[in-house]
């Protein structure tokens, strides 16, 4: 016996499969989301160097990212920081990483011991050295000793 249609035809699609698929996509994007990418200034063009090696995956050390655009401006979250505020900003970062170090290692002496944090320098290929050197000196004065100079590896290009 066939079903008879009522005057008001009602179609109720089964939404469960589409909901399943949407949840799977959400899970995928949640897993691959990279909040650290916000620290990078994506506008700048890094130099291409064949000998640049990707960061070791087992390196658990913290890092402090420094971005310098092609005009030599120090950028934080993509916005240029005033020259007069750079020293204060790096000093605050130094204090923060010293405290972090002390929390990990109670024997850490903030006045003598070095900070294990790596300063990652991301500068545009056209940034003059004097601008980079000013930032390096400021970091060294605040106890940073480990530096990593970022470049685009030749394979990625």
């Amino acid at each position, binding site marked *: *016996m066939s*079903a*008879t249609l009522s005057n008001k035809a009602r179609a109720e699609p089964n*939404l*469960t499969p*589409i*909901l399943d698929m*949407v*949840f799977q*996509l*959400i899970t995928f*994007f*949640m897993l*691959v*989301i*990279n909040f*650290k*990418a916000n620290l*990078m200034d*994506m506008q700048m063009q*890094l*130099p291409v*160097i*064949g*000998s*640049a*090696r*990707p*960061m070791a995956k087992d390196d658990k050390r913290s890092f402090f990212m420094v971005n*310098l655009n092609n005009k030599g401006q120090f950028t934080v979250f993509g916005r240029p920081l005033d020259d007069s505020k750079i020293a204060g900003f790096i000093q605050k970062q130094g204090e923060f990483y010293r405290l972090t170090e002390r929390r990990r290692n109670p024997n850490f002496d903030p006045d003598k011991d070095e900070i294990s944090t*790596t300063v*990652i320098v*991301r*500068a*545009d*290929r*056209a*940034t*003059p*050295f*004097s601008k*980079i*050197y000013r930032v*390096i*000196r400021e970091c*060294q*004065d605040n106890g940073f*000793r*480990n*530096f*990593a*100079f*970022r*470049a*685009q*590896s030749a*394979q*990625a290009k």
Partner: protein
Amino acid sequence: MAKRKSPEEVELNLAAMLDMAFQILCFFILTFKPPPAEGQIQLRMPPAQPLQTVKTNERAGSDASKNNPVQGLNTLPIILTATDEGMIRQIYVNQQEVVVDPKLAMLDAQLKKLLGDPATPYDQVVIQVGSNLKYEELMRVLGICTHQTIGGDPKNHLTKLSLVSEDAP
């Protein structure tokens, strides 16, 4: 014959949940930024120290407090001068000029000769860089320096490197 629903059967309205799920999905799609494939050159850089400080008319060995009189002799100095456009103009390795070629092959050869010798006195490099030099040019030189091995030991790569500016006091 029409199917009659039993009173226990509950039908959830999934449309509202699907709306919300789509909104969250849109947020993740719009904010998705794949991380760029970047490499790095890792260096340990303590603040640059003067290679040797000697007072005027001081004789060698006259100051007994200097317990490391040969400090600085194990450091290989490299000087990079820059053009107005920020390119490398001249390279001096240990005060000897090296020809600047597009791939910096001459610099590579000179560093191999000086650092690769098993009897090399050098274990660190100080690079004095022209203030105008572009980051790209500096990275080319750093790439060549960090590629060098000391004393011919393939596991002992050069990592002790300091940068000083031309204008540094």
